C-alpha cells in the first residue's frame, strides 16, 4: 500500500523531478559501476583479445599460437584434467554431504538443529590459509589422525597431503557452509503441507525425496552446482598449499606461469580457457538469478 502511494507521489512530481531522480540514481551507482567495468568486464574482453591477436610487423593479426601451445602441451593438459577431476569429485562429495544436511536443517524441529546449523556454517569463518595449515597438522604425515590411530594400535593413514585428495578435502570443507545454505534456501520452496500429505498417503522416505522434494529443488541444485564448480575450478590457496606440485591445478598453474615464468600472455590464455570451460555454468547461474529477480518483482 505505502509502496504504491510513494511511487505515486513521484509520478505526480512530473517528468522534471523524475529525470532528476534518475540522474541522482545513476550518479550514485556510477563509481561501483565504473569499477565493475574497468576491473571485471574490460579485463575479460582484454584477455580474449590479447590472446587471439598478436602484434606483428604490420599491425595486429589473428593468431591461436598460445592456445595451440596449451593444447599440445602434455603437462598443461594434465593440469587441466586434474582440475576437472578435482572439481567433479568435490561437487559430488558436496552434494552427498550437504543435501542430507540441508534436508535435516529444513525439516528438523528440535533444538539440536540450531547446533547443527552453527557447525555447518562455522567453516565460512575459517580462512582457507588457516584451514590449509590445520589440515596439514591433522591429516598430514604424523598429524593428529596418525597420533590417534597409533595410540589405539592401528596403522597410519595414507596421507592425502600433496596428493589430489588434499585439495578435494580442503575445498569440500571450505564449501560446506555456502552449499548447505543455498540448498536450505532452495528447500524453503517445498511446503510442509505437501510433505505431510504425501506422508499421510503412505509415501516412504525415499519416495518422498524422489517424487516430492527433488523435483522442486532441481533448479536450486543446479545453481548450487554451477556456483560450486565456478568456485572450485579456479581455486588457488588450497590447491597450492595442499595439492601435488606436478601435475598442479589450474589456479597454481596460472599463478606460476604469471609470476615465476613471467609469461603473462600464456597465463591469460590459461585464464581464458578456464572462462570457456566455466562459461556454461556461468551462463546458467546468471540466467537463474535473472529469472529469480523477475519472479520476485
Amino acid at each position, binding site marked *: 500500500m505505502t509502496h504504491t502511494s510513494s511511487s505515486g507521489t513521484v509520478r505526480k512530481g512530473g517528468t522534471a523531478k523524475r529525470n532528476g531522480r534518475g540522474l541522482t540514481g545513476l550518479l*550514485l551507482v556510477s563509481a561501483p559501476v565504473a569499477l565493475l567495468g574497468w576491473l*571485471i568486464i574490460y579485463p575479460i574482453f582484454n584477455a580474449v583479445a590479447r590472446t587471439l591477436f598478436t602484434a606483428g610487423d604490420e599491425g595486429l593479426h589473428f593468431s591461436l599460437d598460445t592456445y595451440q601451445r596449451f593444447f599440445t602441451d602434455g603437462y598443461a593438459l594434465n593440469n587441466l584434467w586434474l582440475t576437472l577431476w578435482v572439481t567433479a569429485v568435490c561437487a559430488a562429495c558436496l552434494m552427498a554431504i550437504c543435501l542430507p544436511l540441508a534436508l535435516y536443517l529444513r525439516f528438523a524441529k528440535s533444538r539440536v538443529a540450531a547446533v547443527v546449523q552453527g557447525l555447518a556454517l562455522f567453516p565460512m569463518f575459517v580462512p582457507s590459509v588457516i584451514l590449509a595449515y590445520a589440515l596439514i*597438522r591433522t591429516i598430514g604425515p604424523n598429524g593428529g589422525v596418525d597420533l590417534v590411530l597409533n595410540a589405539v594400535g592401528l596403522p597410519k593413514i595414507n596421507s592425502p597431503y600433496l596428493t589430489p585428495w588434499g585439495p578435494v578435502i580442503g575445498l569440500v570443507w571450505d564449501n560446506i557452509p555456502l552449499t548447505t545454505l543455498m540448498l536450505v534456501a532452495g528447500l524453503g520452496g517445498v511446503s510442509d503441507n505437501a510433505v505431510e500429505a504425501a506422508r499421510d498417503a503412505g509415501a516412504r522416505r525415499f519416495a518422498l525425496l524422489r517424487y516430492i522434494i527433488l523435483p522442486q529443488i532441481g533448479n536450486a541444485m543446479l545453481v548450487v552446482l554451477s556456483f560450486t564448480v565456478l568456485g572450485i575450478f579456479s581455486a*588457488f590457496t588450497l590447491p*597450492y598449499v595442499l595439492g601435488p606440485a606436478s601435475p598442479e591445478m589450474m589456479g597454481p598453474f596460472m599463478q606460476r606461469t604469471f609470476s615465476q615464468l613471467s609469461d603473462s600472455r600464456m597465463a591469460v590464455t590459461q585464464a581464458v580457457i578456464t572462462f570457456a570451460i566455466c562459461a556454461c555454468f556461468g551462463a546458467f547461474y546468471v540466467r537463474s538469478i535473472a529469472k529469480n529477480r523477475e519472479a520476485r518483482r
Partner: protein
Amino acid sequence: MTTADLTLAARQEPTVPTRKTKRIDWLGLAITLALGIVVVVPLVVVAIWAFAEVWRYPSILPQEFGLRFWEATLSRPDVWQAMSLSIRLSLTVTLLSAVICLPAAYAFARLDFPGRNLLFLSFLASHAFPKFGLLVAIASIFLNLGLVSTFWGVVLIQLVGTLMMMIWIPVAAFQNVDRAMEEAARDAGAGPLRVFWSVSLPQAAPTIGAAVLLSFVGTFYETEGAWLIGAPEIRTMPVLMITFINNQIVVQYGAVLSVLLWVPSFFALMFSRRLVGSSSFAKGFGV
C-alpha cells in the same frame, strides 16, 4: 579413513526427519558429532600446537606446554610488518568500499533510474566468472600500468572482491526499511535527508554493519589477489602464513599465527551469524 569419509559414513541413515515429537533427536546428535569431528578437530589440533613447546611423534599430547613460541613468533619483524600492512589494507579497502557502495546500494534499492535492473544484475553476474582466471586477467593489465607489487594495486583488486557483498546485502537492508515510518516522518515535516538519517538509516544499520564487518574480515583474509598482485613487495598476513607453511620453518610459527589470525573471524562469527543464517543471504547467490 579420511575426515571426508567419516562424514559420509555418518550420514548413511535416512534423512527425512520425523514430525514434531518430544523424542530425542538421534539423527541430529549423530550429525552434530560427525560435523563436530570434521569441523572442530583440525582447529583444536592447531590450537594445541600453538601452545606446545615439545611435541614428538608418537605422543598423543605435547611433552611440554608453554608460551615460548608466542614470544618467538611475536618478536619476528616480518610478522609485525605483515600485520600492520594487512590492517591498513583492510581498513582502506573497507572504507573505500563503504563510501562507493552504500550510496549505490541505496540507489538500487529505492531510486528509479534507467538501466537499474541491468546494472544490478551485472553486479550479481560478476560471480559467474572463475575468480582466479579473472585475477590473472586483471594482473596482466596491472602489469602494464605498473600497479603490480604496489599497495594501491592490491587495494584495487581487493576492492573489487568486496563490491558484490557491499552492494547486495545493503540493498536488501534498504528494501526492508518500513516505508510507513518514512511517510509518517515526511508528513510531520521532515526533509528527505532528515528522513534518511533519522528513519531509514537506523533501520538498515545492523545489516549494513554486518556487511561492513564481513567485508573487513574477508579482505583481511583475502589471499589470491594479494599473492598474485602484491608479490613480492606486499606481504599480507595470509601471504606470510603461506610462506611459513611452505618453508616449514618451525611448526609452531604457523600455529601461533593461525590462532592470532582467527581472532578477527571469531568476532565476525559473533556479529554476523544472524545475517549469514538468514535466507536473504543465500538468495543473493541466486537460489
